[in-house]
């Protein structure tokens, strides 16, 4: 029986569920892993490489698939599986996607789709979370996602790995030239956002030599917002193709942070005790 289960699970992406009997009952994560490690080692290994397998961000088999086998794959393929752990519906990571054209098509049409179909060959009119991030059932969700790093750019090898994984998904609907241009544009857009962060960092660094930590609290708070919120919004806007996140939640928000940092530091220069001798020259 266990063997039969494993055979089914190994091929669940391509074999219709109706044809193979599935075991009844509920399973804990350890039981899933024990069986799948033997019979679908590749799938487990992919999951283990991903951020989902890390202790602090653990998303186990049962978290996404539920504890029983019936419709376990179809259930996990839907966006609802991902939303709660990724900050809820209003978090930038979700909202940037759900307001994109892909996101609205999924929202409008998902109840009419047959979610038993594998995540490939444009089997779905528009891609949900899993369609892109677990394309062809690849359980390494990190395959098409760069490690988020606000300050530094991405190295060429990492860029090729990430873009290669995503290109395979996009090209099922979009032309290679369109994909390349969007990718390149996205890199440039993110670089520009990063320039604003670097400019702010240089202003704060310079000011740190002249003023106390307490005097720079406001500037540093804006800087944290730049890195952890507004630049990340640009990044999410590019990845999820949300013009609203690229722009309103992103670039002009960074402009606001940058000018407020300059404003805060500029005002310190006008303090009676120091500024004049240093800046008047």
């Amino acid at each position, binding site marked *: 029986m266990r063997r039969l289960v494993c055979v089914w699970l190994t091929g669940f992406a391509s074999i219709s569920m109706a044809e193979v009997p599935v075991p009844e009952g509920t399973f804990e994560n350890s039981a899933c892993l024990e069986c799948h490690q033997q019979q679908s080692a590749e799938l487990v290994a992919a999951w283990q490489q991903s951020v989902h397998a890390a202790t602090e961000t653990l998303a186990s088999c049962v978290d996404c698939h539920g504890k029983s086998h019936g419709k376990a794959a179809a259930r996990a393929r839907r966006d609802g599986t991902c939303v709660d752990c990724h900050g809820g519906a209003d978090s930038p990571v979700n909202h940037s996607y759900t*307001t994109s*054209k892909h996101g*609205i*098509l999924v*929202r*409008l049409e998902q*109840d009419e789709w047959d979610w038993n179909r594998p995540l490939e*060959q*444009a089997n779905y*009119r*528009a891609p949900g979370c899993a369609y892109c991030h677990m394309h062809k059932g690849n359980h390494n969700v990190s395959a098409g996602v760069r490690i988020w790093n606000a300050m530094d750019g991405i190295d060429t090898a990492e860029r090729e790995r990430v873009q290669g994984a995503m290109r395979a998904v996009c*090209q*099922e*609907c*979009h*032309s290679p*030239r*369109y994909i390349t*241009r*969007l990718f*390149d*544009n996205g890199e*440039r*857009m993110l670089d*520009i*956002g990063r*320039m*604003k962060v*670097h*400019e702010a960092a*240089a*202003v704060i660094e310079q000011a740190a030599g002249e003023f106390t930590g307490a005097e720079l609290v406001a500037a540093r708070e804006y800087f944290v917002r730049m890195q952890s919120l507004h630049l990340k919004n640009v990044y999410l*806007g590019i990845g999820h193709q949300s*013009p*609203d996140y*690229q*722009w*309103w*939640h992103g*670039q*002009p928000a960074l*402009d*606001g942070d*940058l*000018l*407020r940092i*300059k*404003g*805060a*530091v*500029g*005002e310190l*220069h*006008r303090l*009676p005790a120091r*500024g*004049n001798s*240093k*800046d*008047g020259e």
Partner: protein
Amino acid sequence: MSRKHVRYVWVPIIIALIAVPAGFYYVDWSKSGEGAGLYSRQWLPDAVFAYWNPDDFYESTDLVAGEFEGEQCIACHEAVTPGIVKDWQASRHATPGNGKATVYCSDCHGNNHQALHLPAPDVCGACHATQHAQFEDEKRYGFPSHALAMERALDAKHFVDKPKAEVTACLQCHSVASKCDSCHSRHRFNAAEARRPEACITCHSGPPHPDDETYYASAHGQLYLAEGKEWDWSKPLRKGNYKGPTCAYCHMDDGKHQVADKSMWKFGIKEINPLTSGNEVKREQWVALCSDCHEADWSRQQLVGLDAERKQAWKKLYSAEAILKDLRSNDLLYPAANERPPYPTDWLDSLWPRARVGFFEGQASAFYNVSPIERDYFEMWYFDNLGAYKGAAHGDQEAVRRGHAAMERDLAAIEEEASRLQGLADAEQQAQRQRPDAAKLWKSGDYTDFNREQN
């Protein structure tokens, strides 16, 4: 008139004969650069603009040579890009019925694979003539409108000034003027999809136009969220077909592809007189539309309520503008206008630097490289004010309350900052200390340098 005075007639005629053609020539010349629009000579397009503004920037791929008929396109693209073929197969273009001919790829994109084009609205208009004519008619009503969206984006000073990869998203939304699939996603081009509010929210969301949030939170939106799934979206947007209104039901009533003709307050970024005779006509158009469900007097009252909300908002905004203009007059803005990068694309600004305050001075493009207090006003005006306006227009009273509370906080913060700036200047004057030059801090840096050199 004596003979001697004839020259008073000739001089202006001659000046006009020279100036008018010269003006036309200048505009033509300024539009003939590598970019597009009035400032086309000042910027180069990013490669991806080809897809958002195909009329100006798209050039066919030359990967495949040959001329193809529709069935051949399908046969190859079924393997190459299965998604778009499946989408087309499910569309009415593939099975139009009523004895109409199938609309193939080549009918819109052309047959020659080395001279393909992305269909602009006029291509769709060849068959959908009524909708295209309605869409074009928007131009009579000016901006904001879908039909003028691209033109106005290209001519916006901050679009021209900023690095082009940064402002790509502008064109992505403003491409609603350049292609019909902004609302009818390719390659299904479904009318039912465009009737639903979600078709609008990719662009109509975010701080300056929270149309999505304010609609969903309204009684209309709540009804849609609760029951919309069960409504028959194949029906036209007409009385009796829908239990509650959606974006398109009100703004494109009866399926008319014209969102600008009933618009009074427009985007809410400047004050208007809501009681002009023209606006009285528009008001009655709204009342007639609302009468699908509501009594005329009740609807009129709602519009009066909107006017009252706007009046309150503008009172607050003008108070803030007055503070900023005072600061400018008294040279209290810091950095001063000549200590920051010049106002976008304005050569006059480098000769005569001037801070911009409010709509009529073009502050909509001056949200960067400005002092924090000017940015505070920009956010009050562009975000909090517009949030309140959209709340009032869409029937989300909580958004109105939130927006006005935020504007009051903004105004208080602007007042406080203004008196701080005054205090700093007073202290400097008393100590006979010169205000430090802010130019070094404001005119250089990674992004600022890049922005100056690349746009």
